[in-house]
């Protein structure tokens, strides 16, 4: 699995979308986040700030 893994704890608060320092996270119609652009720097801020522990950011495929 690559990119942003979102588990069922996510309740759509949108904090991850707001604090991403590369502005590459967006939320879909169900308010679930995904990587909208291939511009992640895997800083892990989204994972850290998620209040539900719902996120796991993976290293981009081209790098790992």
């Amino acid at each position: 699995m690559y990119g942003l893994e979102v588990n069922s704890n996510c309740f759509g608060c949108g904090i991850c979308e707001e604090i991403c320092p590369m502005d590459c996270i967006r939320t879909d119609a169900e308010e679930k986040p995904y990587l909208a652009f291939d511009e992640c720097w895997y800083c892990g801020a989204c994972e850290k700030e998620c209040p539900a522990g719902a996120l796991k950011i993976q290293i981009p495929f081209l790098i790992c």
Partner: protein
Amino acid sequence: MKVSYMETDVLIIGGGSAGSMAAIRLKELNRDQKVTIFEKANIKFSGSIPRGMDALNIVTVPGINTAEDYIEAQNIACEGVLDEAPSYVMAKRSWELMKELQSWGVFFPTDKAGNYEVLKTTPKGRFTVTMREPNLKTILHDRFTKLGCTVVNHTMALQLLVDNGHVAGAVGFNIRTGELIVCHAKAVILSAGGTARFGLPENGYLYGNYDCPANTGDAYSLAYRAGAELTGLEYTLRYYIVKDINCPLLYITLTRGAKLLNAIGEEVGGDHPGIKNMFDEHYDKGLGYLRIRMSHLPVEKIEAVEDILFSTEKPVLQRYFEGKGVNFRNRDIELGPTDMYLCGGHGITGVVVDTGAASTVPGLYAAGDSANVNRGHLTGAFVFGQLAAESATEYIKGISSRQCDPAPYIAEITEKCQVMEENQGFVSIEEFEYKTRRTITDYLTPPKNEYKLSRAVEIMREMKKALPRHVKVSRTHDLWKAFEVENIIDCAILSATASMERKESRWGYWHHRADYPKTDPAYTKLLIVKRGSCDDDVTTRLREPDKSISLKGGNQQ
């Protein structure tokens, strides 16, 4: 295009380490002065240090080293091309800075006798103090927030306002909504990093840079267009760190007894291998990829390394090594060359600044990777953030307000956006960026020569003209990326021009000219670039470096 307006006393462009420190210092000096930060994305984890840091790279620790020692070491590292006074003031203030950081809760480990761990990372002397602070960014962020700084997130500065030769604010672009914001200010501090997205990376991932990939030379381009002097554009850096993921690892491991090996198992570089040694092994001898071996070390040392890397710097790195099946206890870590970049903190590229962080344009200051304080790393970012704040506080005392009409700037930006939105563009901005960076790599990567460098300038100028017509823009995000690529192109033109003017080789691989392979003492000078009569007119001159510290005869133990 919707335009909003705001006013502030000091506008900071870029909210990373330097910008955060500048904001804090401005408010410490005068709580009543209005401080606004333009941050390209969200400031909470922005910049090259989004989370934690494992060292304060330059500290003059009483009893271990002096600021004069530091100048001596830096002159060796930079082969004499160094303005000593700014580096000296940085070194002089570094111990105070460290104490201040400690008072904010930043952790510096000590041994049982109360000594800090001070490591050797320069050709001479020991200046790097181990820091163990996984929440450095958060500490800074909380501090400037509590002090009442205004943060304008998702805003990229596109143009500095210049009123009669004085910088008077900036026009920002909201990267999500596409709206413009004009910020009138009495002074501006540029702290937007260097040009991390510059050359093409070998791993093919355009955002895996060592420095923050959001750093696209914005400060260099803004300063240049406002008429400020810049230097070090020819210092085209490549580091040699963990392959593909570009995480720093070298001295964390080597100082704990790890070995640096080449492809045939020989140890490289003695007790202090430098990047030059590594490039020699890799390119000259073809004995890359180099490897760090820790399997011989006692498990406590390995655990110490893991702790630093995985909890302090970037916790996600653990996944990288797991994914590669690399357990430090039994497998080596591969190192490789990074993509090429421009940087004030790791290199010598930046806006020329004096000992007060002032650029050559009144009202404009620079700090961190945006400023030329040779290889200043985090200490440079913090000290010059403070200096910029102190200077700006004094400067604005004499100013009631600036009346700069932003209309011409707004018109230019609006027209550019319109052209891009309405053209029948056929290329995605991602592909355009790829081609830009591929061209930079083709023609600017050392060994350089006049033919390649002049081609670089020619092609980059063509690409700058082609960009608004050829790029297909369907979202505001694309416009944002287009503005970033324009800045990357500007930096490429400055870099190629400066590289052509420096008709010698210096700094190992970083400015090696195959057509001038020797180091020429006549070039032991700063190469300054400055806007001439228009943006396309890049003027250059050589300037004697400031030697005020060495000349005082201060190089004594």
